[in-house]
């Protein structure tokens, strides 16, 4: 029994239950949110160091040995994602102290936040595909409720699409799990990897069908082309802290599942899967960035950019070389940090100006020069300007693509980077640079006990991480490379779960 693997799941569950117990006390819930997510971040750091020092960690639940019982597995990919979840959660919790209205807090914002995190961390750590489905449902139901908290018309309209498409995705996932069980009679990921690797030739077609079902299901959750339309329709509707957390974390769960399944389990029909992933990823980034270029609402631009950046991560998976996957992992981490930060900045600009429409914004550079600087760090990092985090993420990924001689894809990836810079420049010119328009709306009234510096703290912290990831690029790269090598050699994972000779 390894406590550090179970802690990232137990901590949010415990604090979620505790927050429900103090339902009436807003103050207690706020403090529990900060303490709970801080503890989650600390346990994520512990887990990463333990995994780094001792190799993949495994815990069997109820002492039922794999492949019969459910196992929790933490390899470097899982540990990095848990750390990311802790980081996003902690910054969102601090930001919420100043940004979340009393109405939202009284209707269970913080307990839902903890439940969402429990689902996310569970999905990152489980080694059993049905258990993965259950964690997906845990995080989905929490995200449904977070999305409609406040009950405005736009939220309802966005939520209907979000709920429907996610339920379809769950049904497809369940179908695939049923077919897997019918075919090989196992649900343990490591066991499945062994069984699919030496499956009979007559089953190859069916295995490919199952792989496609998984790809569609996770592709919907990750918002890959052509399955992304729910994301720009819903992500800009909830309060900014929720949007930021969703954009930083929820699509990454889908990306994580794609990485896990297509490096570990479905490796036999690699050429077909790689082709689909490479071109799916490429089209995703082009469509996303073009959508962003066409919009003039702060949060909608950011939502479309989320789609675009997911494309890079899927492309990295499709290339399937250790270098490209390391690039994809850096990209995943960097994008979460930067995109969450940009959403946070949009929240501050809303508080100062009372609108998200770029046409009505303006003069922010004069009114809040430090905010402008923080926006610029995140925006330039998103576009991949050295020496910020996005540059190294893109550099490693492009280098991986060039090594495999994918010239066209590389060219498109670089051009998309340029278009990203274009729409970031658009936000900069419209919201920060130009003079404030005459008929600007009045800023919303600020509720007592919500000082502005609490909104700035997480923004400064995440911007610092974006800079540090660039400055200490080599250490980040080495860690990502180790994780990619673990993914590449699936025997490491299998032996950790099933023992030496499965």
């Amino acid at each position: 029994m390894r406590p550090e693997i179970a802690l990232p799941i137990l901590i949010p569950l415990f604090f979620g239950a505790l927050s429900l117990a103090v339902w009436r006390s807003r103050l207690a819930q706020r403090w529990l949110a900060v303490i709970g997510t801080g503890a989650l971040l600390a346990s994520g750091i512990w887990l990463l160091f333990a995994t780094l020092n001792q190799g993949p960690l495994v815990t069997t639940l109820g002492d039922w040995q794999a492949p019969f019982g459910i196992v929790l597995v933490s390899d470097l990919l899982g540990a990095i994602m848990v750390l990311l979840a802790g980081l996003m959660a902690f910054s969102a919790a601090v930001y919420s102290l100043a940004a979340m209205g009393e109405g939202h807090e009284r209707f269970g914002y913080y307990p839902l936040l903890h439940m969402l995190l429990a689902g996310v961390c569970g999905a990152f750590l489980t080694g059993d595909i049905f258990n993965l489905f259950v964690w997906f449902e845990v995080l989905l139901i929490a995200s449904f409720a977070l999305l409609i908290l406040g009950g405005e018309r736009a939220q309802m309209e966005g939520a209907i699409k979000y709920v429907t498409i996610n339920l379809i995705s769950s049904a497809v996932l369940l179908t695939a799990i049923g077919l897997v069980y019918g075919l090989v009679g196992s649900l343990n990921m490591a066991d499945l990897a062994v069984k699919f690797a030496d499956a009979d030739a007559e089953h190859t077609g069916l295995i490919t069908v199952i792989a496609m079902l998984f790809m569609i299901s996770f592709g919907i959750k990750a918002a890959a082309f052509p399955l992304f339309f729910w994301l720009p329709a819903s992500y800009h509707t909830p309060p900014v802290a929720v949007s930021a957390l969703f954009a930083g974390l929820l699509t990454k769960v889908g990306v994580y599942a794609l990485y896990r399944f297509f490096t570990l389990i479905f490796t036999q029909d690699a050429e077909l899967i790689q082709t689909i992933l490479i071109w799916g990823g490429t089209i995703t980034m082009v469509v996303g960035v073009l959508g962003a270029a066409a919009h003039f609402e702060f949060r909608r631009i950011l939502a479309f950019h989320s789609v675009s950046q997911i494309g890079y991560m899927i492309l990295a998976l499709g290339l399937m070389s250790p270098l490209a996957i390391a690039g994809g992992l850096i990209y995943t981490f960097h994008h979460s940090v930067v995109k969450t930060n940009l959403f946070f900045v949009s929240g501050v600009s809303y508080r100062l100006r009372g609108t998200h429409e770029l046409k009505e914004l303006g003069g922010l550079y004069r009114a809040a020069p430090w905010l402008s600087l923080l926006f610029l760090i995140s925006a330039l990092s998103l576009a991949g300007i050295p020496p910020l985090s996005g540059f190294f993420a893109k550099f490693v990924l492009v280098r991986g693509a060039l090594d495999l001689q994918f010239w066209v894809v590389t060219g498109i990836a670089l051009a998309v980077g340029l278009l990203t810079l274009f729409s970031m420049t658009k936000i900069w010119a419209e919201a920060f640079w130009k003079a404030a328009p005459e008929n600007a709306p009045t800023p919303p009234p600020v509720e007592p006990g919500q000082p502005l510096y609490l909104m700035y703290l997480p923004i400064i912290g995440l911007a610092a991480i974006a800079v540090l990831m660039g400055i200490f690029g080599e250490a980040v790269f080495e860690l990502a490379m180790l994780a990619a090598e673990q993914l590449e050699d699936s025997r490491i994972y299998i032996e950790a779960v099933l023992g030496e000779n499965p």
Partner: protein
Amino acid sequence: MEPLMAYVVGGLYAAAIYMMLRRSIVKLVIGLILLSNAANLLIFTAAGLVRGTPPLIAEGAQVPPPGVADPLPQALVLTAIVIAFGVLAFAVVLIHRAYEIVKADDLDQMKSTDT
């Protein structure tokens, strides 16, 4: 038995997708209900259907006799039913609230957040 179930499952998927493509949000939820049931039946069928052989271990034996029903898919389906029930209950409340706010049950009138 299995071919019949395969047709039933296929019919349920088709009906579910047809209902979800309608404009009414009530039919949308009916489609979701059919979809989750179709997935549950599929797990059941894919894992093998047998009649009258419960997975019981006789007294003194270590393993059940060969050919008994597999209890695991039944546990999976049970879990999936419970989850689907909770999620669908949420969906029903959601469309009710959406109907109250938008004052229409037509998905074509809920396009203001689309792009």
